[in-house]
């Protein structure tokens, strides 16, 4: 974990105290508190529609808070000095499609007033392997390279805080891994990274996270702590009569979710009911296999159990 590095004494970059967002009577984000320190990768995790993007938009200043207090670098305002220290990658491509990668980077360098910007651009293009695409228009790049170009533009001015809204969405495994290498490197250099993701494996790469479901914070801590709080186990079960099995499984009150997955049923059960479930499977003559839980499973668990919000 990069935050343990003694050469980078951790400083608080974000302090959110009960920040919430509502549109009229509709609450988009229930009061939420957390802190992000330098060098950490802080995850806003959860299934789609949980409030991750809303939170990130609040942090980036694109959306005002309806309640609570948000401070970045100890300041509540959004002066230019604060903006200079923040890098932001939105979910959609925010680069100019009709400009080349170099032209886009030049624009970012200019707005951030980077001195010796040509060297900085060369440097960032080398770091992100973008040299071969320097003079390619962004519209001609693949999704993965576009995302890398976007990421490179957001770190060009060496921000202290990097906000990433689902930066790996729609990318293949190789590209995801490449994006994460860069995120790790940036964090190791002392930049605080806030990333939103609905991918469980990516969530596990975060140092700390907050689990958001239905616009509220369900759990907070390290990813492992969060998934432990979900208090569920996920099984794949199958027998000769899946239809009957599907009906009977809900006899177990602790069964949160049961869905068809190929020739088996994917069952999400509270850990407390493990014994009861195994007995049920024995009776039904079902084959049982434990599988990794997904973000959706955890969301269901937190919402179904009305877990204590942190």
């Amino acid at each position, binding site marked *: 974990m990069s935050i343990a590095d003694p050469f980078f004494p951790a400083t608080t970059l974000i302090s959110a105290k009960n920040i919430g967002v509502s549109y009229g009577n509709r609450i988009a984000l229930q009061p939420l508190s957390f802190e992000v320190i330098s060098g950490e990768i802080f995850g806003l995790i959860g299934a789609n529609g949980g409030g991750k993007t809303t939170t990130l938009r609040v942090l980036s*200043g694109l959306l005002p808070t309806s309640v609570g207090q948000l401070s970045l670098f100890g300041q509540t305002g959004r002066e230019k000095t604060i903006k200079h220290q923040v890098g932001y990658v939105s979910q959609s491509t925010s*680069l100019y499609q009709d400009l080349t990668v170099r032209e886009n980077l030049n624009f970012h360098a200019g707005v*951030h007033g980077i001195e010796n910007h040509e060297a900085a651009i060369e440097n960032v293009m080398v770091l992100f392997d973008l040299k071969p695409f320097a003079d390619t228009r962004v519209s001609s790049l693949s999704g993965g390279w576009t995302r890398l170009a976007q990421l490179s533009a957001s770190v060009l001015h060496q921000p202290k805080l990097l906000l990433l809204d689902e930066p790996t969405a729609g990318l293949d495994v190789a590209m995801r891994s490449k994006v994460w290498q860069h995120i790790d490197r940036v964090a190791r250099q002392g930049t605080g990274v806030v990333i939103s993701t609905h991918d469980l494996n990516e969530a596990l790469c975060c140092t700390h996270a907050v689990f958001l479901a239905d616009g509220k914070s369900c759990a907070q801590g390290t990813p492992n702590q969060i998934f432990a709080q979900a208090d569920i186990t996920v099984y794949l079960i199958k027998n000769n009569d899946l239809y009957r099995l599907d009906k009977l499984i809900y006899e177990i009150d602790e069964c949160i979710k049961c869905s068809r997955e190929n020739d088996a049923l994917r069952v999400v059960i509270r850990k407390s009911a493990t014994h009861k479930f195994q007995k049920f499977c024995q009776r039904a003559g079902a084959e049982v296999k434990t599988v990794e839980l997904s973000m959706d499973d955890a969301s269901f668990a937190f919402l179904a159990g009305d877990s204590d919000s942190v």
Partner: protein
Amino acid sequence: MFDRINCLLKRAKRSFRRMRAVAIVEALRILRDRTSFSLVVLVPLLQVVLFGFAVNLDPRGVSIAIAGGSPSSQEFVAIHADGTGYFSIIIKDLKKGHAEYKLEAGEVDIAIELADASEFFDDENADDFPLAPRVIVDGSNVSAVAPALAALEKQILSGLLARLSDSVEDGSYTPPAIKTIWRYNPERRTVWTIMPALIGVIVMISMLMLGALALAREKEQGSWETFAVMPIGASEILLAKLSPYVVIAGIQTLLVVASAVLLFDVPIVGSGILLFFGAILLAVAHLTLGFTISTFVSNQLQALQAAIAIYLPSMLLSGFMFPFNGMPSWAQQFGNMFPLTHFVRFARDVMLRGADASTAGIHLLPITVFVLLFGSLAFLLVRRLQA
């Protein structure tokens, strides 16, 4: 045979269902895009109102000054001018030469200089008639005065003939020939009056559209969010985004002016630099207006529709295509709210009349106020978008 007909009917029915599905979706999308839908209704409504109630091909309210001659001969001309229905501002009781002076100062469209009777006759009664009237016409807007002038000439001559019918019949008196001088446009070339205004029209349309698209494109493509989180102020965005378009406006102005001069021999009697400055000011006015539009709209289609809804009345009410004075008072007041109206007067003054900054500059004042107003509004709206 029956099976075949049945089959064709079924195919037609399926085709109809498919088309109906597409048509419903299309209709729903139009209805849900409220801005576009309201503009679809607004633009034709605007056209109907403007063409029906405001635009008038006949000039009205043409101003005229009468000088020289005797008071009774001036009265004679004034009464007959009034009788045409084209003139509303008639200045008389001027000394010889002063009507022409008023035309040169841009105060009137037509100046009538009457000769003194003593120059021609000893007869006291001759004082009652306008002798050898010299009519000087401002040719910088031919279409706005030509029909009025024709009517005036006819009216005066017929009036004279009626009063002097006996003398004319016995050959003792010949009605005076009316000498018409077209000032600033001796050959009455319509293209000379169109070209200066056309500079404004071209600059207005392109700048309004480009300004309206400036932020709409950013919003539609998602790049606006980058601006919102970057350390750049609203005024910096506004000035930086508009500056390339100002250069485009400058190039456009030079192109139109060069074409006007080289292809149609349109003179630039006044200062070319002053004309260029005016065109740039007009460009900035429409860029700020366009930018204001682009803060409201959410896509490029809406931006273009809104731009059309603005430039259409601006063009129709500016005096570029139809005589400004021919419009009813409400339409003139509405027209005066658009910068193009003032630019058309400014450009004709500078190019054809040779007006200098102190004279033509008066037309730039409303445009400057417009720039300040919409510049401030655009700034506030961009700042609100950023927050």
